[in-house]
Protein backbone atom coordinates (compact mmCIF):
# COMPACT_ATOMS: atom_id res chain seq x y z
CA UNK A 1 0.00 0.00 0.00
CA UNK A 2 1.16 3.48 -0.82
CA UNK A 3 2.39 5.58 2.07
CA UNK A 4 0.62 8.47 0.45
CA UNK A 5 -3.08 9.10 0.86
CA UNK A 6 -3.20 11.06 -2.35
CA UNK A 7 -0.78 11.17 -5.26
CA UNK A 8 -1.46 13.62 -8.02
CA UNK A 9 0.29 13.23 -11.33
CA UNK A 10 0.29 15.75 -14.12
CA UNK A 11 -3.13 17.00 -13.14
CA UNK A 12 -4.80 19.40 -15.55
CA UNK A 13 -8.25 20.83 -15.10
CA UNK A 14 -10.22 22.89 -17.58
CA UNK A 15 -13.51 24.72 -17.35
CA UNK A 16 -14.40 24.85 -21.02
CA UNK A 17 -11.32 26.46 -22.58
CA UNK A 18 -10.13 27.91 -19.35
CA UNK A 19 -7.05 25.96 -18.24
CA UNK A 20 -7.31 26.28 -14.47
CA UNK A 21 -4.95 23.65 -13.04
CA UNK A 22 -1.73 23.22 -14.96
CA UNK A 23 0.25 20.01 -14.78
CA UNK A 24 0.36 19.66 -11.02
CA UNK A 25 2.25 16.87 -9.26
CA UNK A 26 1.73 16.36 -5.54
CA UNK A 27 2.07 13.68 -2.90
CA UNK A 28 0.10 13.87 0.31
CA UNK A 29 1.44 11.61 3.08
CA UNK A 30 -1.05 9.71 5.20
CA UNK A 31 -2.22 11.06 8.54
CA UNK A 32 -0.82 14.50 8.11
CA UNK A 33 -2.37 17.88 7.60
CA UNK A 34 -1.58 19.09 4.12
CA UNK A 35 -2.39 22.71 3.44
CA UNK A 36 -2.98 24.20 0.02
CA UNK A 37 -2.57 27.95 -0.10
CA UNK A 38 -2.54 30.56 -2.78
CA UNK A 39 -4.29 33.76 -3.80
CA UNK A 40 -7.94 33.88 -4.68
CA UNK A 41 -8.77 32.30 -8.01
CA UNK A 42 -5.53 30.31 -8.31
CA UNK A 43 -7.47 27.03 -8.43
CA UNK A 44 -7.35 25.65 -4.88
CA UNK A 45 -11.01 24.72 -4.64
CA UNK A 46 -11.00 23.33 -8.14
CA UNK A 47 -8.06 21.07 -7.39
CA UNK A 48 -9.58 19.95 -4.10
CA UNK A 49 -12.79 19.02 -5.85
CA UNK A 50 -10.87 16.84 -8.24
CA UNK A 51 -9.63 14.75 -5.31
CA UNK A 52 -13.05 13.26 -4.71
CA UNK A 53 -14.53 13.62 -8.16
CA UNK A 54 -16.84 16.43 -7.19
CA UNK A 55 -16.05 17.98 -10.57
CA UNK A 56 -17.99 15.14 -12.21
CA UNK A 57 -21.07 17.16 -11.32
CA UNK A 58 -19.89 20.03 -13.49
CA UNK A 59 -20.47 19.30 -17.19
CA UNK A 60 -18.13 22.08 -18.14
CA UNK A 61 -15.16 20.71 -16.21
CA UNK A 62 -12.56 18.37 -17.68
CA UNK A 63 -9.82 16.57 -15.76
CA UNK A 64 -6.70 14.91 -17.20
CA UNK A 65 -3.80 13.21 -15.45
CA UNK A 66 -4.24 11.01 -12.46
CA UNK A 67 -5.27 11.24 -8.83
CA UNK A 68 -4.42 8.15 -6.84
CA UNK A 69 -6.18 7.52 -3.57
CA UNK A 70 -4.14 5.07 -1.49
CA UNK A 71 -2.55 3.89 -4.69
CA UNK A 72 -5.77 3.56 -6.70
CA UNK A 73 -6.50 5.90 -9.62
CA UNK A 74 -9.88 7.42 -8.87
CA UNK A 75 -10.35 8.42 -12.50
CA UNK A 76 -9.92 4.83 -13.75
CA UNK A 77 -12.96 3.44 -15.52
CA UNK A 78 -14.09 0.97 -12.90
CA UNK A 79 -14.20 3.37 -9.98
CA UNK A 80 -17.48 4.31 -8.31
CA UNK A 81 -17.42 8.05 -7.63
CA UNK A 82 -19.90 7.69 -4.76
CA UNK A 83 -17.51 5.29 -3.07
CA UNK A 84 -14.66 7.76 -3.59
CA UNK A 85 -16.69 10.52 -1.96
CA UNK A 86 -17.35 8.35 1.05
CA UNK A 87 -13.64 7.76 1.50
CA UNK A 88 -12.85 11.40 0.92
CA UNK A 89 -15.16 13.58 2.98
CA UNK A 90 -15.52 17.27 2.29
CA UNK A 91 -16.13 20.24 4.56
CA UNK A 92 -17.04 23.48 2.81
CA UNK A 93 -16.49 27.11 3.56
CA UNK A 94 -20.01 27.84 4.75
CA UNK A 95 -21.03 25.82 7.79
CA UNK A 96 -23.90 24.08 6.06
CA UNK A 97 -25.77 21.55 8.17
CA UNK A 98 -29.28 20.86 6.89
CA UNK A 99 -31.38 23.53 8.62
CA UNK A 100 -34.56 21.47 8.75
CA UNK A 101 -32.99 18.44 10.34
CA UNK A 102 -32.12 18.12 14.01
CA UNK A 103 -28.50 17.91 15.10
CA UNK A 104 -28.97 14.16 15.49
CA UNK A 105 -30.62 13.67 12.10
CA UNK A 106 -28.01 15.75 10.36
CA UNK A 107 -25.54 13.01 11.14
CA UNK A 108 -27.98 10.13 10.87
CA UNK A 109 -29.06 10.99 7.32
CA UNK A 110 -25.88 10.05 5.49
CA UNK A 111 -25.42 6.94 7.59
CA UNK A 112 -28.90 5.70 6.79
CA UNK A 113 -28.80 6.63 3.13
CA UNK A 114 -25.55 4.79 2.63
CA UNK A 115 -26.70 1.92 4.82
CA UNK A 116 -23.59 2.22 6.93
CA UNK A 117 -25.24 1.10 10.16
CA UNK A 118 -27.29 -2.01 10.82
CA UNK A 119 -29.32 -1.14 13.87
CA UNK A 120 -30.73 1.78 15.83
CA UNK A 121 -28.17 1.18 18.60
CA UNK A 122 -25.34 1.19 16.15
CA UNK A 123 -26.67 4.43 14.67
CA UNK A 124 -26.90 6.04 18.06
CA UNK A 125 -23.45 4.83 19.01
CA UNK A 126 -21.93 6.07 15.78
CA UNK A 127 -23.48 9.52 16.17
CA UNK A 128 -22.18 9.88 19.71
CA UNK A 129 -18.78 8.68 18.59
CA UNK A 130 -18.65 11.14 15.70
CA UNK A 131 -19.77 14.07 17.86
CA UNK A 132 -17.11 13.18 20.40
CA UNK A 133 -14.45 12.98 17.71
CA UNK A 134 -15.54 16.37 16.46
CA UNK A 135 -15.27 17.76 19.98
CA UNK A 136 -18.93 18.75 20.02
CA UNK A 137 -20.54 16.07 22.18
CA UNK A 138 -20.34 17.91 25.49
CA UNK A 139 -21.88 21.00 23.97
CA UNK A 140 -24.86 19.30 22.30
CA UNK A 141 -25.55 16.05 24.11
CA UNK A 142 -28.58 17.51 25.88
CA UNK A 143 -30.09 19.02 22.78
CA UNK A 144 -29.60 16.50 20.02
CA UNK A 145 -33.11 17.11 18.79
CA UNK A 146 -32.65 20.86 18.41
CA UNK A 147 -32.13 22.42 15.01
CA UNK A 148 -28.62 23.54 14.10
CA UNK A 149 -29.82 27.15 13.83
CA UNK A 150 -29.30 27.38 17.59
CA UNK A 151 -25.60 26.60 17.23
CA UNK A 152 -22.81 29.11 16.78
CA UNK A 153 -20.97 29.22 13.47
CA UNK A 154 -18.06 27.32 14.93
CA UNK A 155 -20.35 24.68 16.42
CA UNK A 156 -22.12 24.31 13.11
CA UNK A 157 -18.85 23.77 11.34
CA UNK A 158 -17.90 21.10 13.88
CA UNK A 159 -21.30 19.49 13.32
CA UNK A 160 -20.53 19.31 9.62
CA UNK A 161 -17.16 17.77 10.48
CA UNK A 162 -18.94 15.23 12.73
CA UNK A 163 -21.24 14.43 9.81
CA UNK A 164 -18.20 13.74 7.66
CA UNK A 165 -16.42 11.73 10.36
CA UNK A 166 -19.49 9.56 10.96
CA UNK A 167 -19.06 8.17 7.45
CA UNK A 168 -15.60 6.95 8.48
CA UNK A 169 -13.71 8.50 5.60
CA UNK A 170 -9.98 8.09 5.20
CA UNK A 171 -9.35 11.60 4.01
CA UNK A 172 -11.07 14.78 5.12
CA UNK A 173 -10.86 17.77 2.84
CA UNK A 174 -11.70 21.21 4.11
CA UNK A 175 -12.13 24.21 1.88
CA UNK A 176 -11.62 27.36 3.95
CA UNK A 177 -13.36 25.79 6.94
CA UNK A 178 -12.92 28.81 9.19
CA UNK A 179 -13.48 31.59 6.68
CA UNK A 180 -16.91 32.34 8.07
CA UNK A 181 -16.53 31.77 11.77
CA UNK A 182 -15.28 33.95 14.57
CA UNK A 183 -11.77 33.62 16.08
CA UNK A 184 -12.86 31.48 19.04
CA UNK A 185 -14.78 29.11 16.78
CA UNK A 186 -11.85 29.08 14.35
CA UNK A 187 -9.45 28.14 17.06
CA UNK A 188 -11.64 25.19 18.05
CA UNK A 189 -11.80 24.00 14.47
CA UNK A 190 -8.02 24.35 14.19
CA UNK A 191 -7.52 22.37 17.39
CA UNK A 192 -9.87 19.75 16.01
CA UNK A 193 -7.92 19.52 12.75
CA UNK A 194 -4.79 18.92 14.77
CA UNK A 195 -6.55 16.19 16.77
CA UNK A 196 -8.06 14.52 13.70
CA UNK A 197 -4.77 13.94 11.92
CA UNK A 198 -4.08 11.09 14.32
CA UNK A 199 -6.69 9.10 12.43
CA UNK A 200 -7.21 10.86 9.14
CA UNK A 201 -5.37 12.55 6.35
CA UNK A 202 -6.50 16.15 6.17
CA UNK A 203 -6.28 18.37 3.14
CA UNK A 204 -6.89 21.96 4.06
CA UNK A 205 -7.41 24.78 1.62
CA UNK A 206 -6.80 28.15 3.15
CA UNK A 207 -6.47 31.77 2.21
CA UNK A 208 -4.76 32.37 5.44
CA UNK A 209 -1.05 31.51 5.48
CA UNK A 210 -0.93 31.96 9.26
CA UNK A 211 -3.52 29.22 9.62
CA UNK A 212 -1.59 26.93 7.31
CA UNK A 213 1.50 27.64 9.41
CA UNK A 214 -0.33 26.81 12.62
CA UNK A 215 -1.98 23.56 11.70
CA UNK A 216 -0.28 21.91 8.75
CA UNK A 217 2.65 19.54 8.44
CA UNK A 218 3.14 20.15 4.74
CA UNK A 219 2.10 22.93 2.52
CA UNK A 220 1.73 23.54 -1.19
CA UNK A 221 1.67 26.97 -2.74
CA UNK A 222 -0.37 27.32 -5.90
CA UNK A 223 -0.17 30.38 -8.13
CA UNK A 224 -2.17 30.86 -11.33
CA UNK A 225 -2.95 27.15 -11.50
CA UNK A 226 0.64 26.03 -11.11
CA UNK A 227 2.36 24.43 -8.18
CA UNK A 228 5.09 26.85 -7.16
CA UNK A 229 6.48 24.83 -4.32
CA UNK A 230 5.62 22.22 -1.75
CA UNK A 231 7.41 21.03 1.35
CA UNK A 232 7.53 20.91 5.08
CA UNK A 233 5.58 23.71 6.70
CA UNK A 234 8.36 24.88 9.01
CA UNK A 235 10.79 25.18 6.14
CA UNK A 236 8.44 26.95 3.75
CA UNK A 237 7.36 29.56 6.24
CA UNK A 238 10.88 30.47 7.30
CA UNK A 239 12.91 29.95 4.18
CA UNK A 240 10.89 29.11 1.09
CA UNK A 241 12.74 27.92 -1.98
CA UNK A 242 10.96 30.16 -4.41
CA UNK A 243 10.95 33.94 -4.77
CA UNK A 244 7.26 33.79 -5.55
CA UNK A 245 6.44 32.03 -2.29
CA UNK A 246 8.64 34.54 -0.51
CA UNK A 247 6.60 37.37 -2.01
CA UNK A 248 3.30 35.74 -1.21
CA UNK A 249 4.21 35.11 2.42
CA UNK A 250 5.50 38.62 2.94
CA UNK A 251 2.40 40.15 1.41
CA UNK A 252 4.19 41.46 -1.67
CA UNK A 253 2.25 39.47 -4.23
CA UNK A 254 -0.66 41.42 -5.62
Amino acid at each position, binding site marked *: MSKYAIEVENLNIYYGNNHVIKGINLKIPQKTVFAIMGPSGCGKSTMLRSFNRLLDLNKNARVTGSVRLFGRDIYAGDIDSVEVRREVGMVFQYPNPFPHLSIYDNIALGLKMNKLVKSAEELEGRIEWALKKAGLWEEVKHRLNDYPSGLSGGQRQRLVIARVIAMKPKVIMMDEPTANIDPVGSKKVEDLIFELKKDYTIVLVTHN*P*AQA*ARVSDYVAFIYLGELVETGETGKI*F*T*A*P*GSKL*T*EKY*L*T*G*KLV
Partner: protein
Amino acid sequence: MKERFEKDLNKLKSEVERMAELALSMLVDSVESLKTLDVKMAENVISRKDSLADMDESIEEEALRMVAIYQPMAKDLRTIAAVLKMITYLYRIGRYGKDIAGMVKSLEGKGHIAKLVEIPYMANSVADMVRDAITAFKTENISLLNDFEERDDKLDSIRYSIFRECITYMMEDPRNITQCSYYIMIAKYLERCGDNACKMAEKIHFMVTGERIEIK
Protein backbone atom coordinates in the same frame (compact mmCIF):
# COMPACT_ATOMS: atom_id res chain seq x y z
CA MET B 1 -1.12 46.39 7.28
CA LYS B 2 1.72 45.64 4.93
CA GLU B 3 2.74 49.29 4.77
CA ARG B 4 2.63 49.57 8.51
CA PHE B 5 4.82 46.53 8.84
CA GLU B 6 7.32 47.85 6.29
CA LYS B 7 7.45 51.15 8.07
CA ASP B 8 8.07 49.52 11.44
CA LEU B 9 10.61 47.17 9.92
CA ASN B 10 12.57 50.00 8.33
CA LYS B 11 12.58 51.78 11.63
CA LEU B 12 13.76 48.66 13.40
CA LYS B 13 16.56 48.22 10.89
CA SER B 14 17.71 51.79 11.28
CA GLU B 15 17.75 51.30 15.04
CA VAL B 16 20.12 48.38 14.48
CA GLU B 17 22.30 50.62 12.36
CA ARG B 18 22.35 53.17 15.15
CA MET B 19 23.29 50.51 17.64
CA ALA B 20 26.07 49.37 15.31
CA GLU B 21 27.41 52.91 15.19
CA LEU B 22 27.41 53.11 18.95
CA ALA B 23 29.08 49.72 19.41
CA LEU B 24 31.68 50.57 16.78
CA SER B 25 32.37 53.96 18.32
CA MET B 26 33.06 52.22 21.61
CA LEU B 27 35.46 49.79 20.00
CA VAL B 28 37.27 52.30 17.81
CA ASP B 29 37.51 54.97 20.50
CA SER B 30 38.71 52.50 23.09
CA VAL B 31 41.63 51.54 20.89
CA GLU B 32 42.26 55.19 20.13
CA SER B 33 42.36 55.98 23.85
CA LEU B 34 44.65 53.01 24.31
CA LYS B 35 47.13 54.29 21.75
CA THR B 36 47.51 57.63 23.50
CA LEU B 37 46.58 56.36 26.97
CA ASP B 38 43.93 59.03 27.08
CA VAL B 39 42.03 58.24 30.28
CA LYS B 40 39.38 60.85 29.70
CA MET B 41 38.47 59.37 26.37
CA ALA B 42 38.46 55.90 27.89
CA GLU B 43 36.07 57.04 30.57
CA ASN B 44 33.85 58.49 27.94
CA VAL B 45 33.78 55.12 26.18
CA ILE B 46 32.83 53.40 29.41
CA SER B 47 30.03 55.87 29.99
CA ARG B 48 28.36 54.74 26.73
CA LYS B 49 27.69 51.26 28.08
CA ASP B 50 24.28 52.14 29.46
CA SER B 51 23.04 53.49 26.13
CA LEU B 52 24.28 50.31 24.51
CA ALA B 53 22.35 48.15 26.95
CA ASP B 54 19.27 50.31 26.51
CA MET B 55 19.38 49.94 22.75
CA ASP B 56 19.84 46.21 23.03
CA GLU B 57 16.76 46.03 25.19
CA SER B 58 14.55 48.42 23.28
CA ILE B 59 15.31 46.84 19.90
CA GLU B 60 14.60 43.39 21.29
CA GLU B 61 11.35 44.62 22.73
CA GLU B 62 10.30 46.22 19.48
CA ALA B 63 11.23 43.11 17.47
CA LEU B 64 9.15 40.92 19.78
CA ARG B 65 6.25 43.32 19.56
CA MET B 66 6.40 43.09 15.78
CA VAL B 67 6.42 39.30 15.86
CA ALA B 68 3.37 39.31 18.09
CA ILE B 69 1.47 41.88 16.07
CA TYR B 70 2.31 41.02 12.48
CA GLN B 71 3.19 37.32 12.66
CA PRO B 72 5.78 37.80 9.95
CA MET B 73 6.76 34.99 7.61
CA ALA B 74 9.52 34.04 5.22
CA LYS B 75 11.93 36.93 4.65
CA ASP B 76 10.11 39.23 7.05
CA LEU B 77 10.53 36.62 9.75
CA ARG B 78 14.18 36.02 8.85
CA THR B 79 14.84 39.75 9.03
CA ILE B 80 13.46 40.03 12.53
CA ALA B 81 15.34 36.91 13.59
CA ALA B 82 18.52 38.44 12.16
CA VAL B 83 17.89 41.64 14.10
CA LEU B 84 17.44 39.71 17.34
CA LYS B 85 20.77 37.96 16.88
CA MET B 86 22.65 40.96 15.53
CA ILE B 87 21.93 43.11 18.54
CA THR B 88 23.54 40.48 20.76
CA TYR B 89 26.67 40.47 18.61
CA LEU B 90 26.76 44.25 18.51
CA TYR B 91 26.28 44.40 22.24
CA ARG B 92 29.26 42.14 22.74
CA ILE B 93 31.42 44.21 20.41
CA GLY B 94 30.53 47.37 22.32
CA ARG B 95 31.28 45.62 25.60
CA TYR B 96 34.71 44.56 24.38
CA GLY B 97 35.31 48.24 23.63
CA LYS B 98 34.31 49.06 27.16
CA ASP B 99 36.65 46.36 28.54
CA ILE B 100 39.54 47.68 26.48
CA ALA B 101 38.82 51.21 27.72
CA GLY B 102 38.90 49.80 31.24
CA MET B 103 42.50 48.74 30.74
CA VAL B 104 43.64 52.20 29.70
CA LYS B 105 43.51 53.41 33.28
CA SER B 106 45.67 50.55 34.50
CA LEU B 107 48.15 51.13 31.72
CA GLU B 108 48.29 54.89 32.12
CA GLY B 109 51.00 54.99 34.78
CA LYS B 110 53.14 52.43 33.00
CA GLY B 111 53.16 53.58 29.40
CA HIS B 112 53.57 51.31 26.40
CA ILE B 113 56.58 49.17 25.84
CA ALA B 114 56.49 49.66 22.11
CA LYS B 115 54.54 51.60 19.55
CA LEU B 116 51.19 49.91 19.10
CA VAL B 117 50.76 49.02 15.47
CA GLU B 118 49.07 45.70 15.19
CA ILE B 119 46.33 46.31 17.73
CA PRO B 120 45.00 49.43 15.97
CA TYR B 121 45.29 47.58 12.67
CA MET B 122 43.19 44.73 14.05
CA ALA B 123 40.63 47.18 15.43
CA ASN B 124 40.31 48.88 12.05
CA SER B 125 39.88 45.58 10.28
CA VAL B 126 37.16 44.50 12.68
CA ALA B 127 35.43 47.85 12.36
CA ASP B 128 35.48 47.50 8.57
CA MET B 129 33.94 44.05 8.83
CA VAL B 130 31.16 45.33 11.04
CA ARG B 131 30.56 48.25 8.68
CA ASP B 132 30.40 45.94 5.69
CA ALA B 133 28.03 43.63 7.54
CA ILE B 134 25.76 46.55 8.36
CA THR B 135 25.87 47.78 4.77
CA ALA B 136 24.95 44.29 3.59
CA PHE B 137 22.14 44.25 6.14
CA LYS B 138 20.87 47.56 4.83
CA THR B 139 21.31 47.03 1.09
CA GLU B 140 21.11 43.24 0.93
CA ASN B 141 24.30 43.24 -1.10
CA ILE B 142 25.69 40.04 0.35
CA SER B 143 28.74 40.02 -1.92
CA LEU B 144 30.24 42.28 0.75
CA LEU B 145 30.36 39.22 2.99
CA ASN B 146 32.21 36.98 0.58
CA ASP B 147 35.68 37.49 2.03
CA PHE B 148 34.74 37.41 5.70
CA GLU B 149 36.39 34.06 6.20
CA GLU B 150 39.71 35.37 4.89
CA ARG B 151 39.43 38.56 6.88
CA ASP B 152 38.71 36.54 10.00
CA ASP B 153 41.70 34.28 9.33
CA LYS B 154 43.84 37.37 8.98
CA LEU B 155 42.70 38.63 12.38
CA ASP B 156 43.48 35.28 13.85
CA SER B 157 47.01 35.28 12.53
CA ILE B 158 47.65 38.83 13.74
CA ARG B 159 46.43 37.88 17.17
CA TYR B 160 48.87 35.01 17.13
CA SER B 161 51.75 37.17 16.05
CA ILE B 162 50.95 39.65 18.83
CA PHE B 163 50.96 36.77 21.23
CA ARG B 164 54.37 35.53 20.07
CA GLU B 165 55.87 38.96 20.12
CA CYS B 166 54.62 39.56 23.64
CA ILE B 167 56.11 36.29 24.79
CA THR B 168 59.47 37.48 23.54
CA TYR B 169 59.12 40.83 25.33
CA MET B 170 58.13 39.10 28.53
CA MET B 171 61.08 36.74 28.42
CA GLU B 172 63.37 39.60 27.72
CA ASP B 173 62.24 41.59 30.74
CA PRO B 174 59.70 40.44 33.34
CA ARG B 175 58.73 44.09 33.91
CA ASN B 176 56.96 43.91 30.55
CA ILE B 177 54.62 41.24 31.80
CA THR B 178 51.82 43.58 32.92
CA GLN B 179 51.59 45.46 29.64
CA CYS B 180 52.02 42.36 27.56
CA SER B 181 49.29 40.49 29.31
CA TYR B 182 46.97 43.41 28.49
CA TYR B 183 48.05 43.37 24.84
CA ILE B 184 47.40 39.67 24.62
CA MET B 185 43.99 40.10 26.14
CA ILE B 186 43.09 42.99 23.86
CA ALA B 187 44.16 41.05 20.80
CA LYS B 188 41.94 38.24 21.94
CA TYR B 189 38.99 40.61 22.41
CA LEU B 190 39.49 42.01 18.94
CA GLU B 191 39.62 38.57 17.47
CA ARG B 192 36.35 37.75 19.22
CA CYS B 193 34.86 40.91 17.78
CA GLY B 194 35.81 39.49 14.38
CA ASP B 195 33.99 36.28 15.28
CA ASN B 196 30.93 38.31 16.16
CA ALA B 197 31.13 40.14 12.84
CA CYS B 198 31.21 36.74 11.12
CA LYS B 199 28.16 35.57 13.04
CA MET B 200 26.40 38.72 11.91
CA ALA B 201 27.39 37.98 8.33
CA GLU B 202 25.91 34.48 8.62
CA LYS B 203 22.61 35.81 9.90
CA ILE B 204 22.48 38.48 7.21
CA HIS B 205 23.18 35.89 4.56
CA PHE B 206 20.32 33.75 5.86
CA MET B 207 18.07 36.77 6.04
CA VAL B 208 18.69 37.66 2.40
CA THR B 209 18.83 34.22 0.79
CA GLY B 210 17.11 31.77 3.15
CA GLU B 211 20.27 29.66 3.03
CA ARG B 212 22.55 29.05 5.93
CA ILE B 213 26.29 29.42 5.59
CA GLU B 214 29.06 28.85 8.05
CA ILE B 215 32.03 31.18 8.30
CA LYS B 216 34.78 29.38 10.12
